[in-house]
């Protein structure tokens, strides 16, 4: 019920402190416990900035607001963060379908502390120089580096098992057409071409409800891949 002042004043009558205080007290009570839904403006007025100030993690570049998270990282800026992939990390010089063989691409992981169920959209891209390489493989002459996203549903120690869906992965091929058996790189006479340059881009859309980590992993049969440009971005929307 709307506020109604208990005391009404009239001209040429004494003004008492009791009457003014009575109105103030009634108003205080009304504002604390008497406001009814019908007293409120019908149109929604609350904006997210009224509820909670965003929290920004300067190192990871992740911002947590009311409706979710956002953030991005890239190879440049204050730090030079070129990355690499290598068969020497992922264990085998030929294809392996064991998800435990995938290794994280350093610095490409976001950690977010979800408070409720949310839709997560993780974007990434990278440009890499792959090889040259002529190592021992079982799948023919070409070696590849596969990259895909991973997520771990909990950040608690010992519980963060990576979730990887291998068919979603993307690959780049090594630089091989400049390689000569028993006579490695021949210089300008046998130039490397753009074949060893790989440009990949991906998006992972999934849901989460708890603390999680999301980032990039790779599996490689190339001895070395230099990831010279890369970027990751995160959108999280609470459901």
């Amino acid at each position, binding site marked *: 019920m709307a506020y109604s002042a208990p005391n009404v004043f009239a001209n040429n009558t004494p003004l008492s402190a009791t009457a003014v205080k009575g109105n103030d007290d009634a108003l205080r009570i009304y504002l604390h416990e008497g406001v009814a839904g019908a*007293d409120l403006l019908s149109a929604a007025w609350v904006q997210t900035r009224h509820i909670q100030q965003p929290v920004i993690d300067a190192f990871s570049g992740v911002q947590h607001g009311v*409706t979710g998270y956002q953030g991005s990282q890239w190879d440049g800026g204050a730090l030079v963060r070129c990355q690499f992939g290598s068969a020497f990390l992922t264990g085998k010089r030929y294809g392996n379908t064991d998800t435990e063989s995938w290794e994280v691409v350093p610095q490409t992981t976001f950690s977010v502390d979800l408070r409720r169920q949310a839709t997560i959209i993780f974007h990434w891209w990278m440009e890499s120089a792959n090889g040259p390489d002529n190592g021992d493989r079982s799948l023919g002459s070409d070696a*590849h580096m596969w990259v895909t996203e991973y997520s771990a549903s909990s950040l608690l120690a010992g519980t963060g098992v990576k979730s990887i869906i291998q068919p979603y992965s993307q690959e780049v091929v090594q630089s091989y057409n400049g390689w000569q058996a028993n006579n490695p790189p021949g210089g300008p006479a046998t130039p490397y071409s753009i074949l060893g340059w790989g440009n990949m881009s991906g998006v992972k859309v999934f849901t989460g409800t708890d603390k999680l980590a999301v980032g990039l992993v790779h599996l490689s049969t190339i001895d070395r891949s230099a990831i010279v440009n890369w970027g990751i971005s995160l959108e999280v929307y609470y459901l």
Partner: protein
Amino acid sequence: MSRIVRAPVDAGEVIDDSVLNATYNDYAQTGAIDENNVRDQAFDLPHLNNVSIVKFSAVALLGDANMLHTAPLVQYPSSTASPPIVTSVSNAAGTPTFLNFGPGGWPMVGGDVLRVWWNLGVVSFIGMAPPTPYLNPGAMGQYTLEDRAAGPSHIVTDGFHCWLAYLQWDITSNALTNWVAVSGQMDPELGVKGTAKDGFELERLAAGTVVSPYQVTSDGNARNGKVSTTLSTQAHGWYAPYGMYCFTTNIALTVFGVRLVITGLLHPFFNPAGNQENLLVYDYTQGDALYFLLARGGRMSAVQMRRS
């Protein structure tokens, strides 16, 4: 603007009944209190729109769940004659793989946004002999290099031939039998823009990604624009093309599904007549039963988001 914005009484001003009564009566109104007057979570919560900005999301596996380029793989044919072949991405059994938004589809109202992303592992396979389709008579993009040893000239290519992958949707029914190019994208047009060629307008490829099939290299030392050895065709190997599409609607519609289709081979073409459009047209001289795009698996993801 709130009605309760009365200025305070300053020293020296006369206080009469109208000032006092009006001050209190400001609060004796309904439908007037807003964020300028009071902040309280009890008021805030009923006014929070608790509907997520994400209305729908979906992910689908494209092709076959195969990472290592071993069977099963899927072939997408090159077009040898008009009309061109447009093939939906499918698994090796021939079952199309796409985003199915269910019986009710994804209803969109004005201002809603549809965002789609996809990636797919592919390699352009040239099984024809010799593997030099750019030498076929009438092939687009040909030019000639002289041989350094005064031998025969070499016909090479500008390397602009490409496959095209683009998005189609069904906005008719959940029967998913009415696939058409998404908004901003066109399906191939026979005699595009009045030319004698089939193909696409470049300005209507909003959901298209081109896939380069091969390159032509010389292992010799070029000198004065001349080469010393026969050129060789080199496929690009397996790699992962990708695409992104974003659509904001200004009308109500329902999207029942989104799929990726592949067609080729095409080559850029400038239409000198009419409005002088830049086109991407089919080069049927490149068509061959042994020249196809080979694909493994990939992914297509989509979200629909509301305006506010």
